[in-house]
């Protein structure tokens, strides 16, 4: 049987329309894929890489710091932190109760940490607690199956073995600030611990080394699947200091209950063997992120323990300045070593009655005796004859009134006045009466203990102005001062007399087997109208005590300068420290 085909052309005629529509849409879609895959392909490839790669820094071990005899001053100690991975927590409150009980800590702190991180990704672990003991780490490890959300993380922290004793030399670390992050030449990341103060700051680049990095392949849950790459950390380099730990400890022990500073340096090179500032602080406090309360307490503590008094506090040098006056007077020919002045305990200069500290007077004194017994009257007259500008010239020649170039930054310049300074800074002329004050180290003259030590070193070594430094191997920078060695020899001899002769003011520093030379200084804090013994004054009004020294007399190896704020007389308050440090130095078998 033959059938006739149904009428279907009307339908079939519409099919190509559908075909075209379909093909057109496929082309449109293919174009969209072209756009995403080819045009924007690089962009999406980068997003995919960011999805899968996590860069995890490897902490470079920070370089260790040693004293001049190779003794450890600082360690890197492992510290355990507790992290919480919220993404795998089944019962968070229970886990937190467990952690609080195990670590015996306040659960409120954990809550606070969680609140602080409420906005961050669930996959980013939250730091719950620091400084876990090994026993606590073990307890958490045992409970790992029950509480997989807890992770312990090891972090290397700086431990300053000597704590407060070396605080002002070594400094401490702190979290990088905005300024640090922008510091040119340093590639700090937010959260990095960087040197904040002292040696840690100056040599930060050398000490920190270079953190390595692990490139981990992670899945969408943040779980590590594979290690894609690793760049090893470059450990920081070790740093040797010129510091002598034993001497440092000796000086620190003496200043423990006092306010002041001590500096010891090698007059041949400028190597600093002792730098103590008291009161001090415990730099190990800064190892962890310091909370505001602790920081405030440090800032508001009496006598500003954070200050490095050896370089940051400038004071009137008092009678210590007399040795420089001697150098100036002899060099200028203003006085001769034989010239004598009669001290009656007081005199009248520029119509003002002026006193020597010894009311009974010293009688006839030449320069040697004037230095030895610290006669004021002699130097009043010498000052008058030299004039302020010549005094200032010699003071500056010996490095006073400007930073010494010491490698720990933050030095104060101090002040050496002259007539020009008076006009430009005070807008008033210099009064000759002031010169008389400056001649005995009072009035508008300010020097730091470090500057003073440098000056004494230049007198002791025959006129070579060294640049103090504490990092071993620093290039020695020495300036030769244009001064007659014979002049210096006379002043050295006078300083020897201060310590070793009867009626010298520095007898407290006298040693049996080593010839010590020195000079005491007692700088008034307030103008005294009446003679009151310093001990009987309130602490803040007591005199500041200085003692500067070098030893041995022949080829000096060590200069020691001590400054005790409100310590009273230099001979009582400061000289004993000097003696102890010399004893320690010269009794060391490998002295020098």
């Amino acid at each position, binding site marked *: *049987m*033959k*059938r*006739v*085909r*149904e*009428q*279907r*052309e*009307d*339908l*079939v005629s*519409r*099919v*190509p*329309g*559908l*075909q075209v529509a*379909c*093909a057109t*849409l*496929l082309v449109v*879609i*293919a174009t*969209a*894929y*072209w756009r*995403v*895959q*080819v045009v*924007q*392909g*690089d*962009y*999406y*490839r980068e*997003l*995919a*890489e960011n*999805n*899968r790669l996590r860069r995890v820094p490897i902490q470079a071990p920070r370089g260790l710091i040693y004293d001049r005899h190779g003794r450890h001053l600082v360690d890197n100690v492992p510290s355990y932190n507790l992290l919480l991975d919220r993404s795998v927590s089944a019962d968070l409150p229970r886990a937190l109760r467990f952690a609080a009980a195990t670590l015996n800590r306040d659960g409120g702190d954990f809550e606070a940490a969680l609140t602080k991180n409420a906005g961050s990704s669930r996959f980013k672990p939250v730091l719950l607690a620091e400084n876990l003991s090994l026993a606590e780490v073990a307890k958490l490890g045992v409970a790992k199956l029950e509480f997989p959300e807890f992770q312990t993380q090891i972090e290397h922290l700086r431990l300053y073995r000597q704590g407060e004793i070396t605080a002002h030399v070594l400094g401490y670390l702190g979290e990088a600030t905005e300024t640090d992050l922008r510091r040119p030449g340093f590639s700090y990341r937010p959260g990095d611990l960087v040197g904040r103060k002292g040696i840690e700051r100056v040599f930060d680049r050398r000490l920190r080394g270079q953190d390595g990095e692990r490139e981990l*392949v*992670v*899945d*969408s*849950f943040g779980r590590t*699947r594979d290690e894609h790459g690793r760049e090893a950390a470059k450990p920081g380099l070790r740093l040797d200091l010129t510091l002598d730990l034993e001497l440092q400890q000796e000086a620190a022990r003496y200043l423990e209950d006092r306010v002041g500073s001590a500096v010891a340096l090698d007059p041949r090179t400028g190597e600093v063997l002792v730098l103590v500032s008291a009161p001090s602080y415990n730099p190990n406090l800064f190892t962890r992120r310091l909370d505001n309360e602790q920081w405030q307490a440090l800032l508001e503590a009496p006598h500003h323990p954070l200050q490095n008094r050896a370089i940051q506090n400038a004071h009137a040098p008092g009678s210590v300045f007399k040795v420089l006056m001697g150098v100036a007077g002899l060099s200028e020919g203003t006085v001769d070593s034989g010239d004598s002045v009669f001290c009656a305990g007081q005199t009248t200069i520029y119509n003002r009655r002026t006193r020597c500290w010894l009311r009974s007077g010293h009688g006839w004194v030449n320069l040697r005796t004037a230095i030895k017994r610290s006669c004021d009257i002699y130097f009043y007259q010498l000052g008058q004859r030299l004039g302020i500008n010549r005094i200032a010239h010699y003071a500056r020649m010996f490095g006073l009134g400007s930073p010494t170039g010491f490698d720990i930054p933050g030095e104060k310049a101090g002040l050496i006045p002259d007539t020009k300074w008076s006009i430009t800074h005070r807008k008033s002329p210099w009064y000759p009466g002031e010169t008389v004050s400056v001649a005995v180290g009072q009035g508008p003259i300010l020097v730091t203990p470090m500057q003073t030590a440098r000056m004494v070193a230049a007198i002791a070594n025959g006129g070579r102005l060294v640049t103090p430094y504490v990092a071993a191997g620093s290039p020695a920078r020495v300036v030769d001062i244009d001064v007659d060695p014979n002049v210096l020899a006379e002043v050295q001899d006078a300083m020897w007399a201060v310590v070793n002769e009867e009626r010298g003011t520095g007898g407290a520093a006298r040693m049996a087997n080593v010839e010590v030379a020195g000079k005491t200084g007692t700088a008034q804090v307030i103008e005294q109208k009446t003679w009151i013994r310093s001990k009987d004054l309130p602490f803040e009004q007591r005199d500041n005590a200085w003692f500067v020294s070098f030893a041995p007399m022949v080829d000096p190896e060590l200069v020691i300068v001590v400054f005790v704020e409100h310590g009273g007389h230099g001979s009582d308050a400061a000289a004993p420290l000097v003696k102890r440090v010399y004893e320690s130095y010269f009794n060391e078998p490998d002295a020098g």
Partner: protein
Amino acid sequence: MRATSTSLTLAEDRPLLRQLADVRWTLLATAMLLAVVGLATVHSASSELASDYFPRQAVWVGLGLIAFAAMLGIDYQTLSKFSVPIYVAGVLALTAVLFLGAVRGGARSWFGFGSFGLQPSEFAKLSTTLLLARYLAGTNRRYLQLGQIALASGIVLLPMSLVVLERDLGSALMFLPVLAGMLFVAGVRWQLLVAALLLGLLLGALVWNFALLDYQKERVLTFLDPERDPLGAGYQLRQSKIAVGSGQIAGRGYMQGTQSQLRFLPARHTDFIFAVLAEEWGFLGVVGVLLLYAMYILNGAQVAIRARDRTSVFLVVGLLAAFGFHVLYNTAMVVGLLPITGIPLPFLSYGGSFTLASFISVGLILGVDLRRYVNR
């Protein structure tokens, strides 16, 4: 069967083998190629999962080939005769699944048999196409009348609304291109098309803006798509675009796509399998697969064009419309051109019922081609 046409095409009786040889096997070949690509991609996409979906999908492809052979053997005219009971069975299955079905992915559209499940909506789509083809074949006018359009729409809307009640919005949407494609071929005055479109938009906008309160809108949206979550959908789309884009021209290599292997891309072995393919095979792979789909659709359309009668033209057009829309919507959704909804990609996505239905569809189309001669 009416025979009003005067144009006659005669065919001689030919042996079965020669008839079989004359069928558009390209259609099956493209389907098989796509299924192979699909199996490989399912393996890559699920190798990181607890269980590899490759063996299960292979079983479904095997079952699909058997279903294909069965459909090739059954005369579509016989099926057409029974289209009403088949349709009713489909509707009953959809109703039953509403009460007895298992909930998967928020939709109650599954009959579970152990680890295998069946989605009656996939088969209801076929049965609806069959009945609609039969009905439209009988409307022998140049253009459809309003009443006829209403009835045709009713045939589609009944099962479709049941699927909507199952909360399987993606599957429900797929009924619309079937209706639209077949109505277009049946002939609808363009004025009517425009009017319907405008009326629909106007009514929808009026109801949405004035009749519904905000929380009701939210309820409607949540009801239609329980997994509606702007953040979730945003994540899915972003990861999908990263996967597609990072494939660049040549792809990252088979099993080397980081987005899929490291599980950044959700639904990667089902609705988003094309993103995996795009990541691992790049733009070249995308174009290759799109070309295969184009070949399938164009070859299928050739079957429609040379089909014997009106029923078979409608049937093939309806099946191709569903297929084409799946392909277009899914690939457009993966690259971010259309909102995300649960629409799988034929032959590539993992899914038993859908794979089975796709092979049945190939069988039906080639069955039509086999019987295209008026006389046998």
